[in-house]
């Protein structure tokens, strides 16, 4: 009880001391919280996106076979399917027809995919929610400029659900005949081949056999597709490193400023406390509370703000960076996948260094003669 009283008394004194320098400390908390907010926002966003990619892309094809000509992805002859089908372990092989369509009126790029669902509906398309939003068409017909400059009018048969925008926002589904007519796509050729393989242990063996039998092809395994999103939002690259390096530098400057010295007012305060009978340990305890109050408050504000920003505020601060030059951008809400390990790491990387940085210079000031400290 005595210990608790001592702690609350010191905390009272610390808070009064902080409130005496209200403006300085409040601005410190605002900046500190913003640094934590930025780092945490990036961590929450990338982790949730990676988990969502991992879960949804589990449905992607087991193996995709592309043809490579002069180092570039080329159309693959349908005849290659026979050679692939002969490989033991391959359950089925299907040609995949897909490509990109640039809409000159809106300046947007769409992904056109041939769908078996529309095989019996010539002249019909199903649009992703983002395409419909960009075109401003949810029903009726939409014009597409064909390879020869003429216009092909296709009827909107349906709009894909808004909940799947993360994978389908820019999709245009159409049947094979319309696709070939629109792009003058040569018959007997496909964009790539999709393989179905039951045993995941055979993926690499089958991929090696494909390359051996068809040397101008490049197999892409499902595992590589899944790992793509782990890598593209890796902390060492791209978006993450840009934000993290800025935030970490800001934090280092903040902590460095604290660690390198005390203000004259703070030194005088320590001197007075020592002169009035405070032990060095009490001064250090007060400084510990000072660092802890600032850093824990900033940590809580930053983390809670980041959660609200990413999962309630549609990561509005990141939107301009993510949109880039895209005319069409999906509107999606991320499912919050939180890792306690990440939150704990952010806590130890922000609260502990700052608190230690607050104590160290005070320890130096508290161990010398009070008179000398006050005169300095």
């Amino acid at each position, binding site marked *: 009880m005595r210990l608790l009283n001592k702690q609350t008394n010191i905390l009272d004194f610390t808070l009064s001391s902080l409130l005496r320098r209200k403006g300085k400390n409040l601005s410190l908390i605002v900046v500190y919280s913003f640094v934590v907010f930025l780092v945490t926002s990036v961590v929450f966003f990338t982790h949730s996106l990676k988990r*969502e990619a991992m879960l949804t892309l589990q449905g992607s094809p087991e193996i995709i076979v592309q043809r490579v000509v002069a180092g*570039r992805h080329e159309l693959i002859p349908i005849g290659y399917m026979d050679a692939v089908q002969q490989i033991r372990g391959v359950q089925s092989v299907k040609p995949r027809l897909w490509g990109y369509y640039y809409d000159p009126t809106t300046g947007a*790029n769409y992904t056109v995919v041939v*769908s078996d669902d529309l095989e019996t509906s010539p002249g019909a398309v199903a649009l992703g929610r983002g395409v419909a939003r960009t075109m401003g068409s949810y029903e009726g017909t939409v014009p597409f400029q064909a390879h020869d400059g003429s216009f092909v009018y296709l009827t909107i048969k349906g709009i894909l659900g808004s909940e*799947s925008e993360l994978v389908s926002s820019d999709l245009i589904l159409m049947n094979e005949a319309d696709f070939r007519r629109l792009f003058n796509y040569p018959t007997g050729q496909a964009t790539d081949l999709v393989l179905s393989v039951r045993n995941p242990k055979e993926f690499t063996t089958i991929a090696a056999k494909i390359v051996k039998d068809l040397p101008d092809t490049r197999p*892409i395994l499902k595992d590589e597709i899944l790992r793509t999103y782990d890598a593209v939002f890796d902390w060492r690259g791209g978006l993450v490193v840009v934000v993290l390096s800025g935030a970490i530098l800001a934090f280092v400057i903040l902590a460095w400023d604290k660690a390198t010295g005390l203000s004259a007012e703070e030194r005088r305060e320590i001197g007075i406390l020592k002169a009035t009978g405070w032990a060095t340990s009490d001064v250090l305890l007060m400084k510990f509370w000072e660092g802890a109050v600032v850093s824990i408050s900033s940590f809580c504000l930053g983390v809670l703000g980041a959660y609200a920003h990413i999962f309630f505020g549609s990561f509005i601060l990141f939107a301009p960076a993510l949109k880039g030059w895209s005319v069409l951008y999906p509107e999606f809400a991320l499912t919050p996948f939180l890792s306690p390990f990440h939150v704990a790491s952010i806590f130890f990387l922000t609260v502990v260094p700052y608190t230690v940085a607050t104590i160290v210079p005070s320890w130096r000031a508290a161990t010398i003669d009070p008179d000398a400290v006050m005169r300095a």
Partner: protein
Amino acid sequence: MLGRNSHRFLLLLAINVFLLAMMFVHASVRQREDAAVLERMRQLVRHHGLTDLCLFTDARYTRNPSMADFNTPFQDYPLSLEHFPSGSLLGIPPHLRSRGRTVANGGLRSQP
């Protein structure tokens, strides 16, 4: 009870800790609620043979990074500089990072 600054601060701290705990509870509830949505998205991906998330639509190699090759970022010729902003945000897909892939059974050849 709340006359002292320390008590007010400790109350604020308790509220913050409670909100942090609620954050995990909320995340867990949302994960359960969204499980069906994620399953429908997985079905859509499976049905249409999709391979990538629709995050960036400005360049084809950022729309479908898993389908990209080393030439696509350079678009037309090897010294063409990367100019799409999304290209700087994304890292390199792992299967492009290791050009000479070593896969089981003798491995695949080095691929572009």
